[in-house]
């Protein structure tokens, strides 16, 4: 009983750092857990999520494979991407409809080492507003961007851009909260860099498209051979099909900060 009481006391006093993410995630991809990575010669062919569903993200073309066992962050394994690299969900595209049409909370721990170029991190619409889907990317002038695209060029359910030079090139983590049907434009998308304040720059008010995204969910490059994936490392992705409470967002941020040493 003593250890349990000790943990409870630490939790009450706020000194216990979470060692796992808040429950309820739809996807938990963890590069530090090398039991979830399938590779050949350090080239990744599959990354398996740790939720009960065990979604798999795969790559069957050697020239598009990220590397594993090359880089570490805080002593933990990370996946290394160059711009052509990507991993694709094997689940149907419809699995990811919630990302652009209902609510979500996404956490990503990563490093974009090369500035001045586009770096798609997550997407399922081939990077075009003529398509339907969700994008998180880093780009040269407006830095971190989150889009909900509705298949209508030039209009969005939301587009939230953090502004120039906010992300940097060090390993970091972000939180992206989406509520694309919110009546208040600014509340449709909320980006947080580490444990910083909410960045809510969306002014778009168009209705969401509730159809499936154009493609299934991709990690890094927006399309095969698009050459615009992230250049850097990726440690962890958490996706919830809900908006977490402020307390649970902070718990996940503390978990990522402690685990990845940032």
């Amino acid at each position, binding site marked *: 009983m003593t250890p349990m009481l000790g943990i409870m006391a630490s939790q009450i006093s706020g000194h216990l750092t979470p060692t796992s993410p808040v429950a309820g995630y739809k996807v938990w991809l963890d590069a530090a*857990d090398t039991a979830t990575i*399938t*590779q050949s010669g350090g080239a990744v*062919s*599959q990354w398996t999520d740790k939720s009960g569903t065990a979604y798999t993200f795969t790559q*069957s073309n*050697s*020239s598009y494979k990220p590397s594993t066992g090359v880089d570490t962050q805080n002593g933990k394994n990370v996946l290394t991407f160059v711009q052509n690299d990507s991993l694709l969900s094997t689940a149907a595209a419809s699995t990811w409809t919630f990302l652009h049409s209902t609510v979500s909370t996404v956490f990503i721990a990563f490093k974009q080492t090369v500035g001045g170029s586009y770096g798609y991190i997550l997407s399922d619409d081939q990077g075009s507003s003529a398509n339907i889907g969700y994008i998180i990317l880093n780009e040269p002038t407006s830095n971190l961007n989150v889009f909900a695209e509705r298949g209508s060029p030039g209009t969005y359910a939301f587009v939230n851009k953090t502004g120039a030079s906010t992300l940097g090139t060090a390993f970091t983590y972000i939180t992206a909260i989406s509520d694309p049907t919110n009546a208040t434009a600014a509340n449709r998308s909320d980006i947080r860099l580490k444990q910083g304040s909410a960045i809510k720059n969306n002014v778009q008010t168009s209705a969401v498209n509730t159809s499936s995204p154009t493609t299934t969910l991709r990690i890094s490059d927006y399309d095969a*051979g698009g*050459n615009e994936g992230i250049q850097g490392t990726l440690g962890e992705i958490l996706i919830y099909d809900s908006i977490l409470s402020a307390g649970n967002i902070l718990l996940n941020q503390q978990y990522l900060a402690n685990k990845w040493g940032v």
Partner: protein
Amino acid sequence: MWNWYEWNSQEDFNAWHDTIKAKLNYPLAGYIQLTGELDPTAPLTTEYTAVKLVDGKWIGTVEDEQAEGLTATDLRPPKRKIE
């Protein structure tokens, strides 16, 4: 290190690609990083690389050690402006 190379036609690329895949014993199995055990659930790696048509050339990335006889190129897929 993967770098960019070019072919004059899709047929030229296909012939080279078939040869390199045979040389490297494709398709390749995958192994669990932690244990080194074969992962029978993971997809096989069936392709070595792929090409895109840019300015009349078929370009793709190749590991330097596999690129003997190929022509390096400065061509790249066109940049997209996010919409």
